């Protein structure tokens, strides 16, 4: 079992969701986050003063899956999150080993609980 965390551009959430849905990956957690990677945040303008935020708004997607779905999931995220040929700021995918998974309702454990 793996735990996949992707950080993507907010405007790419729709297309990532569509790509995941097309790959039949529907169990997903989405949060609004702020962060800083390699990308310089997009400047905003307030009363004529250009402001470059310290942190850019990003979307974090968490998906837990069985090993055989890791590539499918990551490919779908990449397909949905990439801007054209790819841009700095398109985001990253982190994959971690997932020790255990429990479905609260039934107490099932492991791969079948995902």
């Amino acid at each position, binding site marked *: 079992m793996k735990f996949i965390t992707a950080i993507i551009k907010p*405007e*790419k959430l729709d*297309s990532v969701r569509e790509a995941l849905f097309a790959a039949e990956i529907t169990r997903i957690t989405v949060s*609004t986050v*702020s962060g800083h990677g390699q990308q310089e945040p997009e*400047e905003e*303008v307030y009363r004529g003063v250009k402001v470059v935020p310290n942190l850019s*708004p990003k979307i974090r997607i968490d998906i837990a899956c069985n090993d055989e779905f890791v590539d499918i999931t990551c490919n779908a995220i990449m397909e949905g999150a990439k801007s054209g040929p790819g841009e700095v700021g398109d985001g990253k995918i982190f994959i971690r080993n997932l020790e255990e998974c429990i479905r609260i309702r039934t107490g099932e454990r492991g791969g079948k609980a995902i």
Partner: protein
Amino acid sequence: MLSRRFFLIMFALLAVPVHTLLASGNNAAIDSGATAWMLTSTALVLLMVPGLGMFYGGLVRTKNVLGTMMHSFSAMAVIGVLWVVLGYALSFGQNVLGGFIGWNTDYFFLQGIDESIISQHIPEYVFAMFQGKFAIIAPALIAGSFAERVKFKTYLFFILFWSLLVYLPVAHWVWGPGGFLAEMGAIDFAGGTVIHITAGISGLVVALYLGARRGYPKTAMNPNNLVMTLMGAGLLWVGWFGFNAGSSISSGLETARALTLTQAAAASGALAWMLIEGIQYNKATSLGFVSGMLAGLVAITPAAGVVTPEGAIVLGFISSIFCYFAIILKNKIGYDDSLDVFGIHGVAGIIGAIALVFFLRPSWVAEQSAGWALSRQLITQSITVIIALVYAAVVTYIITIAADKLFGFRLSVSSEQAGMDRSEHAEHGYGLLHIN
């Protein structure tokens, strides 16, 4: 009759050059009570524009909240200037081009009305500014139908030309001196036809031309802030007293009638929507409440001078029912009139303009000439509605094509996904959502 009275006032003004109409420094003609109420009404109608901005702004997704509110606010700037320069002259000047539009050089930049007092004993500046607020809110209403998907620059171009080619001519026909719809005897007390029907159908035309928002209707597009929507709706209800009761251009019996009918129709519209939802879902939604309230307010707008209080309650009630089913129908058909400009303003405007003939005050009917008949009034009202619908639809379609060909009306896919706040205004609405 209101329209005839307008005609007489304007005729009086035109027959005598404005400068000689008034002995300079003669303030005796000013009725300070009427002037005070009309100044208040002018402010109340302007308050509806940010109210509308809040109403619409709360209904879109987070990434479009500022862009949507700017659609309302920018109308205050664009039409606010246009009205002073040309708008008042084109709508309230005497007939030119065969009555298609009005013109009065004295009204160009409002240069000739500095000391003018109109026959209702208020300064003409007040009348001109009061009417100017209506010109502002009409195009701002349309913006709800194509929310979340248009370029700001093209929107500004669109409202400028919509105002010039749709609003000002129709306002002239209904309210201007010698306007042909007024001559026909059409009843439009405070702009049900001029504002709500034209805005409703124009919104529908642009929404159909541009197509649905990306992902609609599959992707859920939830309102970002219904609290703000309710506050905006509250401002609209309050502002509507200026809109309707101010349209009496007086401070007296007619004003009190219009205010009472407005209150009754808004309340009954909201009540009707709550009852429908209560029956259907066993719950009343807040958005449903304000939708019903708006339906009632729109329906009473053309009728606020002429119907009975029972009539106002019935008009509010049935307009709510019609709007409710119009929106269900919209969802079945699947076109994206995003914030239901046609479903509420168009439908309730049509219901109000036509159904008002069944609830006329006996005292109003008694004032009519011998040849008056209910059936004839019904036909007049229907013809007026059809003329407004067809004219606004055709001209809006042409303006939309022109705007699209010149600048591109619709946002690019990436801008639409990023949201108007970022792509059009380089800002974001809610700091708390973007911890920085």
